């Protein structure tokens, strides 16, 4: 399980110089896996049950370095994996794909070497049949300019086959040292990663996940590396190399639960971040620097440096956008609307701009960094205090706020300081409301790219509340029954998502979905959507309701109609990680209805108030009748978005109680 992306997070951060050895006696480090015997075909392990379609018997990775001919060193990965295919649903594990970085020159191209792949089948007579992969069955496909995929599929694969492959990759990219993911979709009986880091390098190392390492050891060993110069000549670097070995034993398969920010936060993984390179005592380069230096460097990069230019080419358009407005906030809103509505974000989430600001302005397209840097420049041009803020999205994993690890950052927004307040803005998302950050950005905090004060700004899911309200009014129309209206206002995120849906699949589909969500005796008409294009306002929906009640002796009505929680989102009975909702919630439902003429209340649902823990959530269900009308007020509030796994059972029961309460009915009887 090779990781090529390093933009992940961790729970502990140590430099690798720290020496620890805590290998327990019985967990022996493996150099070469033992040869395959009959017992390998029948595994027994606490992590293997009938749900494991395959089992990784052994997964070994060794990373070493060697001197090369380009005055540098090459990183050498040797990977061996042995998988038992338990049933046909794991046949896809028999096709192996290995990404290889390619460049224009030999010196920046990875090489793929020494592939050996063999299928082992246990025959009826107890012998083991081997089938080897032919060299001609290795295919390669160019995926992008700098990426090629090597792939092959094993021959003679059946249910019960053991597949083993081994290869070596030589890579010049030691600034992106191979990390290792020990956990995946299949359980791993033994997973081991070993690295020898030359004395010239220093990496920060991060571990995460809930699986305990069976071997977790670091020691020093004297090593020397001889590099050759293209111009001729050689140099030898020697000293204490750091050897690290980590292994997992009986590592369970990983399963993603609902309301998880990113599985990568909880998978068993080890990562490395380049901290320092010292080819000689007078040739030291720091990579992980203090925040101030990092921010300074970032602001000197192409496009970021455009922010300090005069950017006079913006003048005439800014005048048009500004018009006669003088109020500071109104001006910011106008510029925000202009950028949000006219620029296409087609190159995705990144903090690396793809082009100069002027090009972005002219082509009206770019990535998140391009658009938000342009937005910053425009604001500064009219004298507003604006700074770019970089952050890592939820999907990208948690970040280490104290240590600047640039790979953890993949998104850029803008902080605007007005006289009386500070606002965070993202102009790169079409249809996003003013002052709202996309859900995915609510990942803790961001870092302001300001040389004088590179401070953090909080962006937490626990600091944002999604508020919605629904009001239903039903009056006796003395003709067919009750008629009235429903008015609903959505929260910022629901509004944003619903606007996207309305644009994508069209209004019609949504309207028919609403009609269908009511019981057949309630007719829905004149559905209208409010503020569909007013992105700063909550989206609203209004429609007429008509309850044709006929002439029944008894009438039954669920008073929350289609608004109730019908299903508990927490299906699993247990949970290993925290529940991470995208935001806090405040949902209010109010019903005011006449009791239809000729009927009286026979039964009303009982009022109820419930609290989640001390003060994490509240559910109120207040139902009352004065003889001619019925009022219901149903209020659900979550004052927290993140709940530790210990709270899971309570949260699940809380939802359970709500679903039951909201299923209760009002009973009306004909007056005799």
């Amino acid at each position, binding site marked *: 399980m090779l990781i090529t992306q390093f933009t992940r997070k961790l729970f502990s951060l140590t430099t690798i110089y720290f020496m620890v050895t805590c290998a327990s006696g019985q967990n022996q480090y493996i150099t070469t896996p033992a040869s395959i015997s009959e017992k390998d075909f029948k595994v027994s392990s606490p992590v293997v049950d*009938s*749900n*494991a*379609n395959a089992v990784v018997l052994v997964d070994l990775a060794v990373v070493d370095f060697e001197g090369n001919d380009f005055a540098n060193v090459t990183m050498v990965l040797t990977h061996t994996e042995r998988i038992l295919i338990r049933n*046909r*649903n794991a*046949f896809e594990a*028999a*096709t192996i*794909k290995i990404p290889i970085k390619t460049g224009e020159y030999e010196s920046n191209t990875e090489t793929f070497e020494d592939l050996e792949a063999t299928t082992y089948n246990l025959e009826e007579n107890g012998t083991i049949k081997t089938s080897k992969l032919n060299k001609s069955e290795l*295919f390669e*496909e*160019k*995926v992008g300019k700098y990426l090629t*995929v090597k*792939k092959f*599929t094993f*021959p*003679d*694969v*059946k*249910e019960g086959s053991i597949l083993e492959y081994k290869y070596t990759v030589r890579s010049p990219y030691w600034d992106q040292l191979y990390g290792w993911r020990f956990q995946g979709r299949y359980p791993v009986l033994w997973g081991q990663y070993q690295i020898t880091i030359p004395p010239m390098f220093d990496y920060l190392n991060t571990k995460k996940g809930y699986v305990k390492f069976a071997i977790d050891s670091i020691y020093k060993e004297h090593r020397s590396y001889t590099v050759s110069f293209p111009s001729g000549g050689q140099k030898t670097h020697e000293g204490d190399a750091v050897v690290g070995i980590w292994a997992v034993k009986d590592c369970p398969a990983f399963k993603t639960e609902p309301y998880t920010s990113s599985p990568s936060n909880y998978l068993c993984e080890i990562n490395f971040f380049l901290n320092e390179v010292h080819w000689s005592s007078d040739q030291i380069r720091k990579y992980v620097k203090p925040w101030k230096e990092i921010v300074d460097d970032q602001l000197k990069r192409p496009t970021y440096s455009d922010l300090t230019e005069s950017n006079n080419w913006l003048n005439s358009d800014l005048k048009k956008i500004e018009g006669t407005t003088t109020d500071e906030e109104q001006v910011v809103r106008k510029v925000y609307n202009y950028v949000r*509505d*006219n*620029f*296409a*974000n*087609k190159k995705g989430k990144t903090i690396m701009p793809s082009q100069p600001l002027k090009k972005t302005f002219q*082509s*009206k*397209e770019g990535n998140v960094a391009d658009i938000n840097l342009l937005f910053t420049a425009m604001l500064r041009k009219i004298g507003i205090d604006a700074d770019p803020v970089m952050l890592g999205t939820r999907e990208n994993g948690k970040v280490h706020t104290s240590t600047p690890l640039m790979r953890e950052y993949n998104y850029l927004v803008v902080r605007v300081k007005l006289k009386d307040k500070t606002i965070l803005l993202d102009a790169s998302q*079409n249809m996003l409301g003013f002052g709202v950050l996309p859900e995915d950005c609510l990942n803790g905090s961001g870092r302001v790219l300001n040389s004088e004060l590179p401070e953090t700004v909080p962006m937490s899911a626990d600091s944002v509340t999604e508020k919605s309200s629904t009001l239903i009014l039903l009056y006796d129309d003395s003709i067919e029954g009750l008629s009235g209206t429903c008015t609903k206002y959505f929260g910022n995120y629901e509004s944003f998502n619903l606007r996207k849906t309305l*644009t*994508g699949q*069209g209004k019609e589909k949504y309207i*028919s979905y609403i009609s*269908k969500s009511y*019981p*057949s005796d309630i007719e829905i008409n004149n559905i209208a959507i409010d503020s569909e294009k007013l992105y700063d306002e909550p989206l609203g929906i209004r429609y007429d309701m008509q309850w044709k009640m006929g002439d*029944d*002796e*008894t009438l*039954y009505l669920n008073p929350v109609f289609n608004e109730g929680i*019908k*299903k*508990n989102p927490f*299906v699993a009975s247990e949970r290993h990680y925290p529940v991470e909702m995208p935001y806090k919630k405040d949902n209010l439902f109010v019903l005011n209805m006449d009791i239809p003429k000729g009927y009286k209340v026979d*039964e*009303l*649902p*009982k009022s109820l108030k419930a609290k989640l823990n001390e003060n994490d959530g509240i559910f109120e269900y207040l139902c009352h009748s004065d003889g001619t009308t019925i009022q219901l007020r149903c209020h659900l509030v979550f004052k927290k978005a993140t709940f530790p796994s210990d709270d899971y059972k309570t949260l699940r029961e809380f*939802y*359970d109680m709500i*679903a*039951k309460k909201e*299923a*209760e*009915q*009002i*009973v009306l009887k004909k007056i005799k």
Partner: protein
Amino acid sequence: MKYILSFLSLCFSLVVYAQDYKVSLIPDSLKENASVVQRFEEERVVIKSIDKAIITHKCAVTILNEAGDRYSTFEIEYNKLRTLNFVVGRLFDADGKQLKKVKEKEMADQSEAAWFEFVSDSRKKTYSFYHKSYPYTVEFESEIELHGIYHLTEWRPMSFSGDYSVQQSRFVVEAPSDYNLRYKQFNYPTQPVITTSGSTSTYYWEVFNQPVFKNELWQPSAEEYMTSVVIAPTKFSVGGYTGDMSTWDGLGKFQLTLNKGRNELPDNIKQEIHKLADKLTTKQEKVEALYNYLQLNTRYISIQLGIGGWQPFEAKFVAEKKYGDCKALSNYMVSILKEAGIDANYVIIKAGSHIKQGLWKDFPAPYFNHIICCVPDKDTIWLECTSQTESPGYMGTFTGNRNALIVTENGGVVAHTPVYSANDNKTITNVSANIAEDGTLIADVNTIYSGIAQEYPHNLYHGNTQKERDEYYNHKYNLPTYKVENISYKETKGKIPLMDEYLSITSSGYASITGKRLFVLPNLFSKIDKLPTDKPRKFDILIDESHTAIDTITLTIPKGFKLESTPKNVVLNNKFGFYSIEYNVKENIITTIRTHIENENRFPASDYLELAKFYDQMYKADRAKMVFVKSE
């Protein structure tokens, strides 16, 4: 699971013209309901010789709003047999002024197969103009060269997407006068304009001002109401092989030449076949045993390289590697059966559950995307060779009820694959349930699915782990909070396969209790949805699947409640089908029997409201509640 081969790709291509893309030139009638208006299209096929053709395609669309943005994306596939000569994209503003020109170099070049299919030499160029100032117009122009002609191209000027209108589209085919171009047109009012100059004949088709086409539920196949033209060669040559596809027989003969010499099996496999089959007596038994052998010993891997898109790998390759695509595995199966002395054929078919017509008998052409195998007989046995779990003889929604081309030793023959009746496709559910004092439901559910109805549980059973099935069932039902446990299956293979499913459900709060009343929905699972009636029906109604569902539910409620209101029994019997639901309350036991039968059929559009009324009646009956009051 089954897999389709990928050689059928729509061909997009074009020619240079200066067009005026001013938005003001769009007639109002084309803007109605539209997010996109196609302004200009020309697809031009220039056939140079028996194995050379150039396809140029130029198409311009005006995007009126955000919903149309997806049409600003362009994609063109190319490979060794269809090389890309050039592609260019242009962006215009509302006044028709060119804002941007994109050349091939700036477009993304992707491998179709890199992370998915195993190996393919097909790649695609893609580009998206995500412009934000509406309206805007994008134009793409491309030229593809065919090295070898087999599948030519199709012209489908109209779109299903529900927000796309067409101002103009043209299809031009140039061919040597002696080429014998064949064509079949659908919903085109006249014959094409054909002109001849020198030794070249040119065919023109063109449509103008087609408003947005709105889809309807259960509409007939597109060819019945949309304009399209399919063209095909008579004599053709591809990858060094030649053929004549003016008859199905000829097309079959061509496949024979491709397959020639690819049936040889290694000795060890031959021995295994005889060991398995020779002791069996009937043909049926032998076929079943050998099909099972194929399923146990092979898996699906797609390899599409050059002529390999149409030619199977040799049987001995599959015998050694134990994998192949639909062509290789079907050819292998044919070889295995022949070795056992059973006559078997390679069958070319158009697979997919939405396909209503496999081929047009009067117009032989390679419409296909899949290969299966058949053992011809009075009662032919059809075999899907890419699945490790399918029953021998079962075709289902993927390949059933359509015409296919059987490649016999003498040539091609068209045959129809099995049709499944309401008696074959059944869902028989028996529920025995208990409601406790607090409204909690505990139910034992047994469902016997057959025919098409068993496809879903079949895949659930074979393609998922127990944990995944648990998860599926724990999301499936529309019950408040519930838990599904003890899920088990019994499978019975056969031409009409059966899946017998057992499970138990606990649902707290199933019956809602308000004070002294108990509300019970006695029909637990089978619930019909309403049909939309907001728009007048335009097309015939095509019910393309027959089905029978019978639910028998026995519910025991807590003692001490007496019935307050009960839904009426309902029996509906009409030309659309049969529906009945009846209740029987004896003390505290409610027995509900619900039956619904629907048959494959076709009704005129004028019947729609009546059908909707039928559905509405079923909708209500399915959701009727029973109310009990606590006895004082």
